[in-house]
């Protein structure tokens, strides 16, 4: 990080709440785009993952559609939806949702499938109803894996939400696209750094929630000697990732 970038990042004016084009506003916009996409993706992927995990039916189709979504270039999706419905938040949200669904869907499915057959058999055999088996046995045991998927999705969405700026919206992507347009590279780097810091911060936050929600009996905290491995999964790669997204954008 060179001195110009440093100066840009720590310039008090850039942190002023009064200015619309300041870090706090851009961070809030960025979080807003990311949160909307993550919530929608979760609402879609989580129930489907639970269902196909519990019944073990339709997994082939669901997982493959999910993975096909992963192969779609996010910018391509953005442009396609833009052409179909016009500008605004919708194309960005659709593109980010398609990005976030596969990790949540596959980990929810895999998490539920990872629950030992003996445990499910015992749950059914002592008189739990199917819904109770899902909610009070399979889900709590699958939580560490599902959290992994959600954290992965959150990292990808936060780093990719920079594309919102490409279609005229705000967010931290503004610094990347404006910086590139103005050849103001410190601005670009500063934007990338903020995206990376934001991604790591959100990852840590979800990790904290995970620690509160997941039973010590299933995440390794209870078993002696073995400590849970903390996994801010590839947060460092995030800055690189957002730069890649930007560089894909046609000038």
């Amino acid at each position, binding site marked *: 990080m060179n001195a110009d970038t440093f100066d840009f990042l720590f310039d008090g004016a850039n942190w002023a709440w009064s200015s619309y084009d300041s870090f706090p506003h851009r961070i809030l916009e960025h979080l807003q785009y990311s949160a909307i996409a993550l919530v929608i993706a979760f609402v879609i992927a989580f129930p489907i993952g639970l269902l196909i995990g519990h019944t073990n039916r339709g997994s082939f189709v669901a997982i493959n559609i999910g993975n096909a979504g992963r192969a779609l270039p996010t910018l391509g999706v953005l442009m396609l939806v833009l052409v179909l419905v016009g500008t605004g938040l919708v194309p960005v949200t659709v593109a980010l949702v398609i990005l976030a669904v596969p990790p949540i869907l596959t980990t929810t499915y895999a998490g539920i499938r990872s629950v030992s057959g003996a*445990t499910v*058999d015992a*749950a*059914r*055999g*002592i*008189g739990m109803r199917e819904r109770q088996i899902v909610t009070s*046995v399979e889900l709590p045991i699958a939580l560490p894996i599902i959290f992994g998927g959600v954290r992965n999705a959150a990292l990808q969405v936060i780093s990719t939400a920079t594309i919102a700026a490409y279609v005229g919206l705000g967010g931290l992507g503004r610094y990347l696209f404006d910086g590139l347009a103005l050849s103001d590279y410190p601005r670009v780097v500063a934007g990338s750094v903020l995206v990376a810091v934001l991604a790591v911060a959100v990852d840590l936050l979800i990790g904290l929630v995970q620690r509160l929600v997941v039973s010590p*009996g299933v995440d390794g905290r209870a078993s002696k000697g073995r400590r849970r491995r903390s996994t801010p999964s590839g947060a460092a790669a995030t800055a690189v990732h957002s730069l890649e997204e930007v560089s894909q954008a046609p000038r």
Partner: protein
Amino acid sequence: MIEFDDVTKRYPDGTVAVGGLSLTIPTGGITVLVGPSGCGKTTSLRMINRMIDPTSGTIRIDGEDVLKQDPALLRRSIGYVIQHAGLFPHRTVVDNVATVPVLNGVPRKQARARAYELLERVGLTAGMADRYPVQLSGGQQQRVGVARALAADPPVMLMDEPFSAVDPVVREGLQQEFLRLQGELGKTIVMVTHDIDEAIKLGDHVAVFAEGGRLAQLSTPEELLSKPADDFVAGFVGRDRGYRGLSFAGSADLAVEPVTTEVEGLRLSLDDAGRPLGWTGSGALLPTEGSFHLGDSLRVVTDLTLLSPAGAAVRVDAEGRADGIVRQGALAAYVRERQLGRLGSTGS
């Protein structure tokens, strides 16, 4: 009483797991279903609590058709123990045990209090109550599994290979405690095992299954050893049937000779309290290789006579004082007499 009335389970691919099974399991005893793998014993067990529904036929518990009952409620009224315990890893031991009462609407606090009692009952300390299953050994997990099955005090318990996932030493201990527990509780227990020795040891009744879910024989363990219904049962029960059958014969009526009797130049030497020290002859003290009590089986006595340097087993009283010896010859005569009596009673 659990009745199977012409029960058949046929899978869509045509496999018949259980074919026309009729079987009555009496109340208040351990009935063991045993047989080679693929004989339908587990399928039969799982049809009792509707984990599997039969293709045809009826199963009644105390006269009530299980197919007419809500599966979840039926299962809550029947204890269920499986091979790897199947504990809930995300719940503490005490919450695992409290599961069924909580499902039945018992307040959590009350269910926990009962769970603590049960843990003690199955030989676990209160200190283990707040641990997670991952922190327990296999044997301890299985004890928790049994406690969980007992929590709602069901009259009937189903156990699918409950002791086969632990090592032989732990298994032996679990079996002993299981028999002690059953002595206190007197539940109606249906257990599945592939181990004929376990079946003979634990069962009040043993149902031997052959391939295709055919019931080959249902009888007491003693009768299974002495009078196998056919070659299949005889083959399955295995070798040493005669010797193993002695497990069911008590030694109470077995006459003993005084401890001072000289046996082939050897004499039993005792300590000041009258406890046996060993056999002495011309040379050094020879070990007695153990002793038996009045209630022990003929199998124990026979084994002692085979091991003893004098060919005689030593009987001791409750305080461990020698009160008689039994020589091989006398034992053989007693066993033969008993056999003749049994043959006479069936011949008439």
